C-alpha cells in the first residue's frame, strides 16, 4: 500500500479511523484496477454504473458465493459424534456449523472465548438457538478441554504469502495446543483475504485496540490497574491479531480448493493473472 498521504482521500479517511484490514486493502486494489480499465469513451453515469456493478460482482463472487462454497466443502468434514472447537465468533464458521446441523449431523461444539471482547458468548447463543449442544471455556482452559475435542475449526482474517495465518489474537495458541494434542486444525478463509505481505511474528504488523476494554469486568468492579493512566510504570496492551505458523495448521479451505497453508502464493499468483 502506498504511504498514507498519497492515497485517495477516502482511503486516508478510513485509515485514520482505524487500521485497514487486509481484505479491505485487497478490495481497494481491485477497485483501482477496475477504475483504470474503464474506457475513456464512456459517459460518467455509465462508468459509475459499471463500477457499481463490478463492486457488486466482487461481493457476490468473492464473499457471498465463496462463503457458500467453503461451507459446502467444510460441512463434508463434520461427521457424527464430532466435538468441534471454535474460537470466538466468526460468521463463516457459524454458518458452517448451522448448515451441518441443518443436514442432521450429530455433533457438539466447544466454544473457546477470550477477554476482553468475549464474542464467544454470541456464538453460544446462536448455536444453542439452533439446538447444537455447546460447551464454553476461556482460552486458559483450552488444554483442559482439548482431549475431548475431535477437530478444530478456525477463521482467518488473512492468509499471508509465506503461509502464516493472521487471525484474532489467541488463534496461534489454539493452533499450538491442537497440534500438540494431534487434533486437525481446519482454517476457513476466502481468497479475497489472501495477502502478499510476509510476516514471521505477530508484533511487526498488528493493531492495538482500546486498552480500557481490558479493564471491563463482568460485575463492573474496578481492577487493581484501573488507574493505569496515573501510574507511569503500567501499560495495557490489547492486541487484535496474531499470526499462526503454517506448521500448526492442517488445512486451509478456500472456495477454489482445499490447500495447505504454504500454497498461499500460488493462489495469489492465480489472482494476479486473473486481474
Amino acid at each position, binding site marked *: 500500500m502506498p504511504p498514507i498521504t498519497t492515497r485517495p482521500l477516502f482511503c486516508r479517511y478510513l485509515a485514520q479511523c482505524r487500521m485497514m484490514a487486509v481484505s479491505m486493502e485487497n478490495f481497494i486494489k481491485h477497485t483501482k484496477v477496475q477504475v483504470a480499465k474503464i474506457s475513456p469513451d464512456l459517459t460518467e453515469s455509465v462508468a459509475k454504473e459499471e463500477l457499481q456493478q463490478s463492486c457488486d460482482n466482487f461481493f457476490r463472487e468473492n464473499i457471498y458465493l465463496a462463503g457458500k462454497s467453503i461451507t459446502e466443502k467444510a460441512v463434508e468434514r463434520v461427521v457424527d459424534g464430532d466435538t468441534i472447537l471454535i474460537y470466538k465468533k466468526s460468521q463463516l464458521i457459524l454458518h458452517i456449523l448451522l448448515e451441518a446441523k441443518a443436514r442432521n449431523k450429530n455433533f457438539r461444539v466447544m466454544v473457546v472465548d477470550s477477554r476482553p471482547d468475549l464474542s464467544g458468548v454470541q456464538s453460544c447463543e446462536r448455536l444453542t438457538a439452533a439446538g447444537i449442544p455447546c460447551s464454553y471455556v476461556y482460552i486458559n482452559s483450552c488444554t483442559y478441554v482439548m482431549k475431548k475435542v475431535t477437530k478444530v475449526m478456525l477463521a482467518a482474517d488473512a492468509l499471508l504469502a509465506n503461509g502464516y495465518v493472521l487471525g484474532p489474537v489467541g488463534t496461534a495458541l489454539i493452533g499450538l495446543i491442537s497440534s500438540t494434542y494431534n487434533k486437525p486444525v481446519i482454517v476457513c478463509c476466502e481468497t479475497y483475504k489472501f495477502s502478499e505481505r510476509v510476516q514471521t511474528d505477530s508484533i511487526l504488523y498488528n493493531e492495538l485496540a482500546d486498552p480500557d476494554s481490558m479493564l471491563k469486568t*463482568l460485575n463492573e468492579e474496578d481492577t487493581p490497574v484501573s488507574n493505569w493512566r496515573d501510574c507511569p510504570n503500567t501499560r*495495557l496492551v490489547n492486541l487484535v491479531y496474531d499470526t499462526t505458523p503454517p506448521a500448526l495448521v492442517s488445512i486451509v479451505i478456500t472456495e477454489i480448493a482445499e490447500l495447505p497453508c504454504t500454497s498461499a502464493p500460488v493462489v495469489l499468483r492465480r489472482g494476479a493473472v486473473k486481474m
Partner: protein
Amino acid sequence: MDPFLLKKITRDTKSQLEEFALYLSENKNERRSYVSVVKTINVFRDLICTAEWVTGRELIKIVKCYCKYLPLSQSNETDVSNVVRRILKIIREESVGPEATNSADGISAFFKTDIKPCNLGRSDLQDNILNSIVELLAELDTSKSNIVNMALEHIHSNERILTYGHSNTIRDFLLYGRKARDFEVIVCESGPSLKGHKMAAELSEGGIKTTVIADSAAFAIIHAVNKVIIGTHTIMADGALRATNGVHQVAMAAKFFSVPVIVCAPLYKLSPTHLCSYDPDAFNKVIGPEKMLNFSNANLHSKVLISNPDFDYVPSDLIELFITNTGGHAPSYLYRIISELYHPEDYDLDNMCVEDVEDEMAT
C-alpha cells in the same frame, strides 16, 4: 474421629484438631500456602506434646490416624500433606537414633518398615522431635528469602520477563531484582480471576515497567521475551507442575520459541505424588463460572456447559529450572530431593505399615 486416636488425646487437643480440620475445609481459594503450613506445624507440635505415646511407631500411628480425619485428599491441600510428611520423617529419624542415621546401616534402616527403637524414653524423644520441628520452622521462615536472594543470578539488565497471574514469591523475586537491575515485566492477566492485574499493580508500585496483556496474546509476544518466570501451586514428583489455569499453554508457547521457563517455589510445595490419570477431571478442580459468564446471561447458563478449572498440569519437559530455597535444580533432580525430604512409607498418607495393620486386626 478414629476411636484409637480418641483414646490417646485429651479433650482440648481434640477440639483443637477439629478446629484445624475445619480451617482446612474453609477458605480454600484464599488461603496462603505459607500461613497454612505454619499453622499445621503448630497443630502437630501440640499433638506430639499432649498425646499418649511411648515409642516413635505409636506416635506415627497417631499422626496418621489424625491425617485420615483431615480433608487432605483435596487437591488444594498438598502443602499441608507435604509438611505432615516432613514431620513424620523427623519422627522416624529421631526414633531410629543419631548413630543409626550416620552409619551405613542407617540408610537401610530408613527403608525397613520396622523402626528399631533406640533407647530414648518418651521425654528425650519428644525433646529431640520438637527441636527438629523448630529447625523445620526456621527453614520454612527463610525459604522465601532464600529464593528471592537468587534473583540477581537469573535476571540481567534490559531483559523482558513474562509472568503469569499472581504469585507472592515471584513478586518479591522480581522486586528484589529491581534493586540492582533495570528490566521489564509482561504479565498475563490470567482470566477469569484477573489475578494478573493485582500482580501488575504491585510490580509497577515497586518501580518495574509492567505491561498487562490478555492470556490469548501469550503466543504473539513470547518470541520477544527473554524468559518466563512463574510460580506454582504444587510441584509433582517428576518435576511436573500443578499451577494456575493457563500456565500450560504459556509453557508450550515458550517451548515453541525456545524461551526458558523458570519456576520459583519453596520445597514445601514439592509433593511425592505423580499424575495418576490423564483424565483432566481426575487431576483438576472446577470452580464456579460466575466470573466467566454473567448471570444476566441466565438463559445460556442453563443450556451451555461452562467449565472453569482452577489448575493446570504442566509436564516437566516444558520446564527448564526450578529455583527453590535450597538452590536451583533441574526437573530431573527432584527425585533425589524427595528421597531426602520424605520417607517412602509416607508418600501415601493413608498407608499404615504392616505391623500396625496386624496390631489393629488383633485388637
